[in-house]
Protein backbone atom coordinates (compact mmCIF):
# COMPACT_ATOMS: atom_id res chain seq x y z
CA UNK A 1 0.00 0.00 0.00
CA UNK A 2 1.24 3.48 -0.80
CA UNK A 3 1.58 5.76 2.15
CA UNK A 4 -1.54 7.63 3.06
CA UNK A 5 -3.06 9.61 5.87
CA UNK A 6 -5.69 8.09 8.16
CA UNK A 7 -8.37 10.34 9.61
CA UNK A 8 -11.28 9.44 11.81
CA UNK A 9 -13.83 12.24 12.22
CA UNK A 10 -16.75 12.08 14.63
CA UNK A 11 -19.53 13.35 12.41
CA UNK A 12 -20.47 13.51 8.76
CA UNK A 13 -19.79 17.21 8.63
CA UNK A 14 -16.31 16.66 10.01
CA UNK A 15 -15.90 13.84 7.52
CA UNK A 16 -16.77 16.20 4.68
CA UNK A 17 -14.28 18.75 5.97
CA UNK A 18 -11.70 16.01 6.13
CA UNK A 19 -12.30 14.79 2.60
CA UNK A 20 -12.20 18.36 1.32
CA UNK A 21 -8.89 18.93 3.05
CA UNK A 22 -7.38 16.15 0.96
CA UNK A 23 -6.39 16.22 -2.67
CA UNK A 24 -7.72 12.84 -3.50
CA UNK A 25 -9.21 11.40 -0.36
CA UNK A 26 -11.38 8.35 0.00
CA UNK A 27 -14.08 7.53 2.47
CA UNK A 28 -13.33 4.34 4.35
CA UNK A 29 -16.37 2.43 5.60
CA UNK A 30 -15.86 -1.30 6.14
CA UNK A 31 -12.91 -1.34 3.78
CA UNK A 32 -13.72 -4.74 2.37
CA UNK A 33 -13.15 -3.58 -1.20
CA UNK A 34 -11.05 -0.50 -0.65
CA UNK A 35 -8.32 -2.02 1.47
CA UNK A 36 -7.61 -4.97 -0.84
CA UNK A 37 -7.44 -2.44 -3.71
CA UNK A 38 -5.00 -0.26 -1.80
CA UNK A 39 -2.91 -3.29 -0.88
CA UNK A 40 -2.54 -4.04 -4.57
CA UNK A 41 -1.52 -0.41 -5.12
CA UNK A 42 -4.36 0.02 -7.57
CA UNK A 43 -5.27 3.35 -6.04
CA UNK A 44 -3.20 5.99 -4.36
CA UNK A 45 -5.38 8.30 -2.26
CA UNK A 46 -3.57 10.83 -0.13
CA UNK A 47 -5.90 10.20 2.74
CA UNK A 48 -8.53 7.85 4.10
CA UNK A 49 -11.48 9.24 6.02
CA UNK A 50 -12.81 6.52 8.30
CA UNK A 51 -16.49 7.22 8.85
CA UNK A 52 -17.04 4.50 11.45
CA UNK A 53 -17.06 7.13 14.20
CA UNK A 54 -19.81 9.22 12.61
CA UNK A 55 -22.67 7.51 14.36
CA UNK A 56 -24.21 6.05 11.24
CA UNK A 57 -25.05 2.57 12.41
CA UNK A 58 -28.56 2.66 13.80
CA UNK A 59 -31.38 0.48 12.55
CA UNK A 60 -34.91 1.72 13.07
CA UNK A 61 -38.45 0.79 12.16
CA UNK A 62 -40.05 3.96 10.84
CA UNK A 63 -43.46 2.59 10.04
CA UNK A 64 -43.58 2.14 6.30
CA UNK A 65 -39.86 1.81 6.04
CA UNK A 66 -36.89 0.36 7.80
CA UNK A 67 -34.11 2.87 8.03
CA UNK A 68 -30.62 1.44 8.24
CA UNK A 69 -27.54 3.49 8.94
CA UNK A 70 -24.89 3.36 6.26
CA UNK A 71 -22.21 2.06 8.62
CA UNK A 72 -24.35 -0.87 9.74
CA UNK A 73 -22.24 -3.97 9.31
CA UNK A 74 -23.73 -6.83 7.31
CA UNK A 75 -23.82 -8.92 10.45
CA UNK A 76 -25.87 -6.27 12.26
CA UNK A 77 -28.45 -6.26 9.49
CA UNK A 78 -28.47 -10.05 9.35
CA UNK A 79 -29.02 -10.33 13.07
CA UNK A 80 -31.28 -7.31 13.59
CA UNK A 81 -34.61 -8.24 15.13
CA UNK A 82 -36.16 -5.20 13.46
CA UNK A 83 -34.99 -6.23 9.99
CA UNK A 84 -35.81 -9.89 10.51
CA UNK A 85 -39.34 -9.02 11.49
CA UNK A 86 -40.14 -6.47 8.82
CA UNK A 87 -38.01 -7.57 5.85
CA UNK A 88 -36.60 -11.03 6.53
CA UNK A 89 -35.35 -11.20 2.93
CA UNK A 90 -33.01 -8.30 3.63
CA UNK A 91 -31.60 -10.06 6.67
CA UNK A 92 -31.17 -13.18 4.56
CA UNK A 93 -29.32 -11.21 1.91
CA UNK A 94 -26.98 -9.71 4.50
CA UNK A 95 -26.40 -13.15 6.00
CA UNK A 96 -25.20 -14.40 2.63
CA UNK A 97 -22.70 -11.68 1.76
CA UNK A 98 -19.08 -12.82 1.64
CA UNK A 99 -18.01 -14.80 4.64
CA UNK A 100 -18.45 -14.27 8.36
CA UNK A 101 -15.39 -12.04 8.65
CA UNK A 102 -16.48 -9.90 5.71
CA UNK A 103 -19.93 -9.56 7.26
CA UNK A 104 -18.37 -8.49 10.53
CA UNK A 105 -16.67 -5.56 8.83
CA UNK A 106 -18.47 -4.78 5.58
CA UNK A 107 -21.16 -2.14 5.60
CA UNK A 108 -24.41 -1.37 3.82
CA UNK A 109 -23.29 2.08 2.77
CA UNK A 110 -19.93 0.91 1.51
CA UNK A 111 -21.49 -1.76 -0.63
CA UNK A 112 -24.16 0.50 -2.08
CA UNK A 113 -21.78 3.39 -2.76
CA UNK A 114 -19.32 1.08 -4.49
CA UNK A 115 -22.05 -0.50 -6.65
CA UNK A 116 -19.95 -3.47 -7.63
CA UNK A 117 -21.88 -5.25 -10.38
CA UNK A 118 -21.66 -8.45 -8.33
CA UNK A 119 -22.59 -7.04 -4.94
CA UNK A 120 -25.77 -8.24 -3.24
CA UNK A 121 -27.08 -5.10 -1.57
CA UNK A 122 -27.84 -3.00 -4.66
CA UNK A 123 -30.51 -5.53 -5.64
CA UNK A 124 -32.32 -4.99 -2.35
CA UNK A 125 -32.07 -1.23 -2.65
CA UNK A 126 -33.61 -1.35 -6.09
CA UNK A 127 -36.27 -3.96 -5.40
CA UNK A 128 -37.34 -2.49 -2.08
CA UNK A 129 -37.86 1.01 -3.55
CA UNK A 130 -35.32 2.32 -1.13
CA UNK A 131 -34.35 5.91 -0.62
CA UNK A 132 -30.69 6.64 -0.23
CA UNK A 133 -30.19 9.48 2.24
CA UNK A 134 -26.97 11.40 1.92
CA UNK A 135 -25.63 14.36 3.81
CA UNK A 136 -27.33 16.61 1.28
CA UNK A 137 -30.35 14.86 -0.22
CA UNK A 138 -32.44 11.74 -0.67
CA UNK A 139 -32.06 9.75 -3.85
CA UNK A 140 -34.64 7.24 -5.01
CA UNK A 141 -33.21 3.84 -5.81
CA UNK A 142 -34.29 4.02 -9.44
CA UNK A 143 -32.14 7.13 -9.86
CA UNK A 144 -29.26 5.99 -7.72
CA UNK A 145 -27.48 3.28 -9.70
CA UNK A 146 -26.15 4.74 -12.91
CA UNK A 147 -23.81 2.04 -14.20
CA UNK A 148 -21.13 -0.41 -13.30
CA UNK A 149 -19.45 0.98 -10.16
CA UNK A 150 -21.31 4.21 -10.80
CA UNK A 151 -23.92 5.95 -8.71
CA UNK A 152 -25.58 9.33 -8.48
CA UNK A 153 -23.28 10.20 -5.58
CA UNK A 154 -21.00 13.20 -5.90
CA UNK A 155 -17.37 12.92 -4.87
CA UNK A 156 -17.94 14.57 -1.54
CA UNK A 157 -21.27 13.04 -0.72
CA UNK A 158 -21.74 10.51 2.06
CA UNK A 159 -24.54 8.02 2.35
CA UNK A 160 -25.91 8.39 5.84
CA UNK A 161 -28.69 5.85 5.76
CA UNK A 162 -31.01 3.95 3.50
CA UNK A 163 -34.76 3.54 3.97
CA UNK A 164 -36.17 0.30 2.65
CA UNK A 165 -39.88 0.15 1.94
CA UNK A 166 -41.49 -2.76 3.74
CA UNK A 167 -42.81 -5.19 1.16
CA UNK A 168 -45.79 -7.48 1.45
CA UNK A 169 -43.43 -10.25 0.65
CA UNK A 170 -39.85 -10.49 -0.50
CA UNK A 171 -37.06 -12.93 -1.10
CA UNK A 172 -33.46 -12.94 -2.24
CA UNK A 173 -31.78 -15.89 -3.91
CA UNK A 174 -28.19 -15.85 -5.00
CA UNK A 175 -26.03 -18.11 -7.09
CA UNK A 176 -22.53 -17.40 -5.88
CA UNK A 177 -19.44 -17.37 -8.03
CA UNK A 178 -17.80 -20.59 -6.84
CA UNK A 179 -14.41 -18.90 -6.37
CA UNK A 180 -15.04 -15.40 -5.07
CA UNK A 181 -18.49 -16.11 -3.60
CA UNK A 182 -19.72 -12.82 -5.01
CA UNK A 183 -23.11 -13.05 -6.71
CA UNK A 184 -22.80 -14.58 -10.17
CA UNK A 185 -26.50 -13.93 -10.24
CA UNK A 186 -28.57 -12.62 -7.37
CA UNK A 187 -32.27 -11.90 -7.65
CA UNK A 188 -34.28 -9.85 -5.21
CA UNK A 189 -38.02 -10.18 -5.64
CA UNK A 190 -40.30 -7.86 -3.68
CA UNK A 191 -44.05 -7.72 -3.76
CA UNK A 192 -45.92 -4.58 -2.76
CA UNK A 193 -49.59 -5.43 -3.01
CA UNK A 194 -50.17 -5.86 -6.76
CA UNK A 195 -46.82 -4.51 -7.72
CA UNK A 196 -43.79 -6.77 -8.02
CA UNK A 197 -40.21 -5.62 -8.39
CA UNK A 198 -37.44 -7.91 -9.55
CA UNK A 199 -33.89 -6.64 -9.23
CA UNK A 200 -31.00 -8.61 -10.63
CA UNK A 201 -27.38 -8.28 -9.55
CA UNK A 202 -24.21 -10.05 -10.60
CA UNK A 203 -25.40 -10.35 -14.16
CA UNK A 204 -25.71 -6.97 -15.82
CA UNK A 205 -22.82 -5.27 -17.53
CA UNK A 206 -24.13 -1.99 -16.22
CA UNK A 207 -24.57 -3.34 -12.72
CA UNK A 208 -27.82 -4.04 -10.94
CA UNK A 209 -31.01 -3.77 -13.01
CA UNK A 210 -34.74 -4.38 -12.81
CA UNK A 211 -36.26 -7.01 -15.02
CA UNK A 212 -39.45 -5.44 -16.28
CA UNK A 213 -40.81 -8.46 -18.09
CA UNK A 214 -40.61 -10.70 -15.06
CA UNK A 215 -42.04 -7.91 -12.94
CA UNK A 216 -45.11 -7.65 -15.12
CA UNK A 217 -45.58 -11.41 -15.37
CA UNK A 218 -45.29 -11.76 -11.62
CA UNK A 219 -47.55 -8.79 -10.98
CA UNK A 220 -50.39 -10.57 -12.69
CA UNK A 221 -49.54 -14.03 -11.41
CA UNK A 222 -47.09 -14.35 -8.54
CA UNK A 223 -45.92 -17.90 -9.14
CA UNK A 224 -42.76 -19.61 -10.28
CA UNK A 225 -44.67 -21.39 -13.01
CA UNK A 226 -45.74 -18.14 -14.59
CA UNK A 227 -42.07 -17.40 -15.32
CA UNK A 228 -41.65 -20.43 -17.57
CA UNK A 229 -42.76 -18.50 -20.62
CA UNK A 230 -40.42 -15.59 -19.98
CA UNK A 231 -37.42 -15.43 -22.25
CA UNK A 232 -34.41 -13.89 -20.57
CA UNK A 233 -32.32 -12.14 -23.19
CA UNK A 234 -28.59 -12.52 -22.71
CA UNK A 235 -27.70 -9.20 -24.39
CA UNK A 236 -26.06 -6.87 -21.91
CA UNK A 237 -25.29 -9.65 -19.46
CA UNK A 238 -21.81 -10.19 -18.11
CA UNK A 239 -19.73 -12.86 -19.74
CA UNK A 240 -16.55 -13.91 -17.97
CA UNK A 241 -14.51 -17.03 -17.50
CA UNK A 242 -16.92 -18.30 -14.86
CA UNK A 243 -20.20 -17.90 -16.69
CA UNK A 244 -21.32 -16.93 -20.15
CA UNK A 245 -24.11 -14.45 -20.69
CA UNK A 246 -26.28 -17.34 -21.80
CA UNK A 247 -25.70 -19.24 -18.58
CA UNK A 248 -26.32 -16.12 -16.55
CA UNK A 249 -29.62 -15.66 -18.37
CA UNK A 250 -30.59 -19.15 -17.31
CA UNK A 251 -29.59 -18.45 -13.73
CA UNK A 252 -31.61 -15.23 -13.64
CA UNK A 253 -34.75 -17.14 -14.46
CA UNK A 254 -33.93 -20.01 -12.18
CA UNK A 255 -33.02 -17.83 -9.20
CA UNK A 256 -36.16 -15.77 -9.72
CA UNK A 257 -38.26 -18.92 -9.73
CA UNK A 258 -36.63 -19.94 -6.48
CA UNK A 259 -37.25 -16.52 -5.01
CA UNK A 260 -40.94 -16.70 -5.79
CA UNK A 261 -42.38 -18.85 -3.06
Amino acid at each position, binding site marked *: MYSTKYMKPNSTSEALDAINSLG*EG*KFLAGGM*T*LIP*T*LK*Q*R*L*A*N*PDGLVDISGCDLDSIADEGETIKIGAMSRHVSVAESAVVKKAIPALAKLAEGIGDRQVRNRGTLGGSVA*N*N*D*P*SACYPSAVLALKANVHTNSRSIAADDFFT*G*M*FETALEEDEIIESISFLKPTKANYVKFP*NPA*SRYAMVGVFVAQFGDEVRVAVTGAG*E*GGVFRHQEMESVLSSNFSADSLSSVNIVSDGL*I*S*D*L*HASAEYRANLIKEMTKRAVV
Partner: protein
Amino acid sequence: MEIKDSYELPLSKERVWAALNDEEFLKNSIPWCEKLERRSETELAAEVKLKIGPMSTRFTGSITLSDIDPPNGYTITGSGKGGIAGAASGSAKVKLVEDKDTSSTILSYEVSAQVKGKIAQLGSRLIQSTAKKLSKNFFGSFVKQLEDMDKP
Protein backbone atom coordinates in the same frame (compact mmCIF):
# COMPACT_ATOMS: atom_id res chain seq x y z
CA MET B 1 -13.81 -10.92 -26.88
CA GLU B 2 -15.60 -8.87 -29.49
CA ILE B 3 -17.61 -5.76 -28.95
CA LYS B 4 -19.71 -4.25 -31.72
CA ASP B 5 -22.16 -1.44 -32.03
CA SER B 6 -23.30 1.19 -34.48
CA TYR B 7 -24.83 4.68 -34.56
CA GLU B 8 -26.78 6.51 -37.20
CA LEU B 9 -25.80 10.15 -37.62
CA PRO B 10 -27.76 12.69 -39.66
CA LEU B 11 -24.55 13.91 -41.23
CA SER B 12 -22.45 13.34 -44.28
CA LYS B 13 -19.71 10.79 -44.23
CA GLU B 14 -17.13 13.52 -44.81
CA ARG B 15 -18.30 15.42 -41.79
CA VAL B 16 -18.03 12.38 -39.56
CA TRP B 17 -14.68 11.46 -41.04
CA ALA B 18 -13.34 14.93 -40.32
CA ALA B 19 -14.42 14.62 -36.73
CA LEU B 20 -12.77 11.23 -36.45
CA ASN B 21 -9.52 12.94 -37.29
CA ASP B 22 -10.02 15.98 -35.11
CA GLU B 23 -7.84 15.95 -32.03
CA GLU B 24 -10.31 17.92 -29.92
CA PHE B 25 -13.11 15.57 -30.81
CA LEU B 26 -11.03 12.60 -29.87
CA LYS B 27 -9.82 14.13 -26.66
CA ASN B 28 -13.34 14.89 -25.56
CA SER B 29 -14.41 11.39 -26.46
CA ILE B 30 -11.74 9.42 -24.66
CA PRO B 31 -13.10 8.71 -21.20
CA TRP B 32 -11.08 10.39 -18.45
CA CYS B 33 -8.57 11.70 -20.95
CA GLU B 34 -6.24 14.13 -19.20
CA LYS B 35 -3.80 14.77 -21.99
CA LEU B 36 -3.69 14.26 -25.72
CA GLU B 37 -0.88 15.57 -27.90
CA ARG B 38 -0.32 14.91 -31.55
CA ARG B 39 3.01 13.32 -32.34
CA SER B 40 2.48 12.65 -35.99
CA GLU B 41 -0.23 12.26 -38.60
CA THR B 42 -1.14 8.90 -37.14
CA GLU B 43 -0.03 9.01 -33.55
CA LEU B 44 -1.07 10.93 -30.49
CA ALA B 45 0.37 10.70 -27.01
CA ALA B 46 -2.31 10.19 -24.39
CA GLU B 47 -2.74 10.15 -20.66
CA VAL B 48 -5.88 8.70 -19.17
CA LYS B 49 -6.88 8.34 -15.57
CA LEU B 50 -9.02 5.26 -15.44
CA LYS B 51 -11.36 4.79 -12.52
CA ILE B 52 -13.19 1.54 -12.05
CA GLY B 53 -14.78 1.23 -8.67
CA PRO B 54 -12.13 1.81 -6.04
CA MET B 55 -9.36 1.38 -8.60
CA SER B 56 -7.84 4.53 -9.97
CA THR B 57 -4.82 4.29 -12.22
CA ARG B 58 -3.14 6.61 -14.65
CA PHE B 59 -2.35 5.07 -18.01
CA THR B 60 0.17 6.70 -20.27
CA GLY B 61 0.45 5.63 -23.84
CA SER B 62 -0.61 6.45 -27.29
CA ILE B 63 -3.48 6.59 -29.70
CA THR B 64 -2.56 5.38 -33.16
CA LEU B 65 -4.53 5.43 -36.35
CA SER B 66 -4.03 2.72 -38.93
CA ASP B 67 -5.74 1.14 -41.93
CA ILE B 68 -6.71 4.68 -42.85
CA ASP B 69 -9.21 4.71 -45.68
CA PRO B 70 -10.66 8.23 -45.97
CA PRO B 71 -13.53 8.80 -45.61
CA ASN B 72 -14.63 5.23 -45.05
CA GLY B 73 -12.94 4.43 -41.78
CA TYR B 74 -9.82 3.47 -39.89
CA THR B 75 -8.59 1.49 -36.97
CA ILE B 76 -8.00 3.48 -33.84
CA THR B 77 -5.87 1.83 -31.21
CA GLY B 78 -5.26 3.05 -27.74
CA SER B 79 -2.65 1.42 -25.63
CA GLY B 80 -1.23 2.44 -22.34
CA LYS B 81 0.84 1.37 -19.40
CA GLY B 82 -0.64 1.70 -15.98
CA GLY B 83 2.50 1.11 -13.95
CA ILE B 84 1.91 -1.45 -11.25
CA ALA B 85 -1.58 -2.15 -12.58
CA GLY B 86 -0.28 -3.50 -15.86
CA ALA B 87 -1.17 -2.44 -19.34
CA ALA B 88 -4.24 -2.22 -21.48
CA SER B 89 -4.97 -1.75 -25.12
CA GLY B 90 -8.08 -1.50 -27.16
CA SER B 91 -8.47 -1.40 -30.85
CA ALA B 92 -11.60 -0.25 -32.69
CA LYS B 93 -12.23 -0.83 -36.35
CA VAL B 94 -14.43 2.07 -37.36
CA LYS B 95 -16.48 2.02 -40.54
CA LEU B 96 -18.55 4.79 -42.04
CA VAL B 97 -21.32 4.01 -44.49
CA GLU B 98 -23.41 6.78 -45.96
CA ASP B 99 -27.07 6.35 -46.72
CA LYS B 100 -27.69 8.68 -49.66
CA ASP B 101 -31.46 8.52 -49.31
CA THR B 102 -31.57 9.75 -45.75
CA SER B 103 -28.29 11.65 -46.08
CA SER B 104 -27.13 10.08 -42.90
CA THR B 105 -24.05 8.08 -41.99
CA ILE B 106 -23.86 4.84 -40.12
CA LEU B 107 -20.83 4.65 -37.86
CA SER B 108 -20.12 1.09 -36.83
CA TYR B 109 -17.30 -0.22 -34.72
CA GLU B 110 -15.79 -3.45 -33.64
CA VAL B 111 -13.54 -3.44 -30.61
CA SER B 112 -11.01 -5.92 -29.37
CA ALA B 113 -9.33 -5.34 -26.06
CA GLN B 114 -6.39 -6.79 -24.24
CA VAL B 115 -5.12 -6.33 -20.71
CA LYS B 116 -1.85 -7.34 -19.14
CA GLY B 117 -0.46 -7.76 -15.68
CA LYS B 118 -2.28 -7.14 -12.45
CA ILE B 119 -5.52 -5.99 -14.02
CA ALA B 120 -5.68 -9.28 -15.93
CA GLN B 121 -4.63 -11.31 -12.92
CA LEU B 122 -7.07 -9.75 -10.50
CA GLY B 123 -9.80 -8.17 -12.54
CA SER B 124 -10.69 -10.72 -15.18
CA ARG B 125 -14.37 -10.64 -14.27
CA LEU B 126 -14.49 -6.96 -15.18
CA ILE B 127 -12.47 -6.93 -18.38
CA GLN B 128 -15.25 -7.45 -20.87
CA SER B 129 -17.77 -5.20 -19.13
CA THR B 130 -15.17 -2.48 -18.79
CA ALA B 131 -14.09 -2.71 -22.41
CA LYS B 132 -17.70 -2.48 -23.50
CA LYS B 133 -18.35 0.42 -21.23
CA LEU B 134 -15.30 2.35 -22.39
CA SER B 135 -16.15 1.73 -26.05
CA LYS B 136 -19.66 2.90 -25.46
CA ASN B 137 -18.44 5.98 -23.63
CA PHE B 138 -15.98 6.80 -26.38
CA PHE B 139 -18.32 6.46 -29.31
CA GLY B 140 -21.27 7.74 -27.31
CA SER B 141 -19.56 11.02 -26.49
CA PHE B 142 -18.08 11.26 -29.96
CA VAL B 143 -21.54 11.00 -31.47
CA LYS B 144 -23.01 13.34 -28.92
CA GLN B 145 -20.43 16.01 -29.70
CA LEU B 146 -21.27 15.78 -33.36
CA GLU B 147 -24.95 15.95 -32.70
CA ASP B 148 -24.61 18.88 -30.29
CA MET B 149 -22.46 20.74 -32.74
CA ASP B 150 -24.95 20.35 -35.50
CA LYS B 151 -27.88 21.47 -33.41
CA PRO B 152 -29.10 24.81 -34.59
